[in-house]
């Protein structure tokens, strides 16, 4: 398994670096508006179904939401795998790395389905 992860390293690195950038740029605003301001009643328009659906179902909106879900998953998976390695997890790297990337792959495929079915 570890050998396969080494072969896939360039692809994973591409997704990881894109994920760090896209996630770092888009997710703080999401967390602030939809996770804090919306639930506290400060941003009532943000939490309305019509507004959210109109944003997410627009063709550009679908692409942005897909990028904001799928790419940060790969960035996060690669970070967590290397955090595991830093704490001495070399022997179990094949299993942990595969689990991290499997989670990212599952989330990416689910994100594709989610934006298509809008």
């Amino acid at each position, binding site marked *: 398994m570890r050998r396969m992860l080494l072969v896939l390293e360039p692809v994973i690195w591409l997704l990881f670096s894109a*994920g*760090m*950038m896209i*996630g*770092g*740029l*888009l*997710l*703080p*605003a*999401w*967390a*602030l*508006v*939809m*996770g*804090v*301001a*919306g*639930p*506290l009643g400060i*941003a009532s*328009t*943000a*939490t*309305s*179904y019509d*507004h*959210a*659906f109109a*944003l*997410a*179902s627009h063709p550009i909106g679908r692409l942005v*939401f897909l990028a*904001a*879900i*799928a790419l*940060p*998953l790969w*960035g*996060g*998976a*690669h*970070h*967590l795998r*290397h*955090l595991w390695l*830093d*704490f*001495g997890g*070399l022997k179990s790297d094949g299993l942990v790395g595969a689990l991290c990337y499997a*989670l*990212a792959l599952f*989330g990416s495929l*689910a*994100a594709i389905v*989610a*934006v298509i*079915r*809008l």
Partner: protein
Amino acid sequence: MSHAEPRVDAMKPAKPGPTRTAPPRPPDGFPSQGNYRAYLAFAFGGFFLMTVSFLVLRAVWALGNGEAAWNQLQGSFQNPIYVIFHGLAFLWLTWFILRLFRLFPATQPKRFGPLKRPPDAVLTAGLSGVFVVVTLVVAAILWGAV
């Protein structure tokens, strides 16, 4: 007078075997000293990237299921644990991307094609400015102000 045969490969082991390398070990002071704490906090940003992404996925999925599912999700987001988590995620990811931009100049070549590379402070300030603008624009769109 006899001559001893010179050994051509003095480093050759007596019998073949696997290359011996020292087992990996953490550097001195890891993980509590020096820059290691910031390094690990940065790597732990991966946890927030993944969890917030899955929450966005949950939200888009709920949108696809209709208004009732969306309203139910908004109700669950009012749980204080979710609010505190999102607040922490906002702070952590903001620090995460600003640290990435602060480290960015060290990874760049001396020239950008035919152009001379700007000073590190200009690069960092420019990228941090991009982050502020993008965050404000995305927040305004989500807020419904645009």
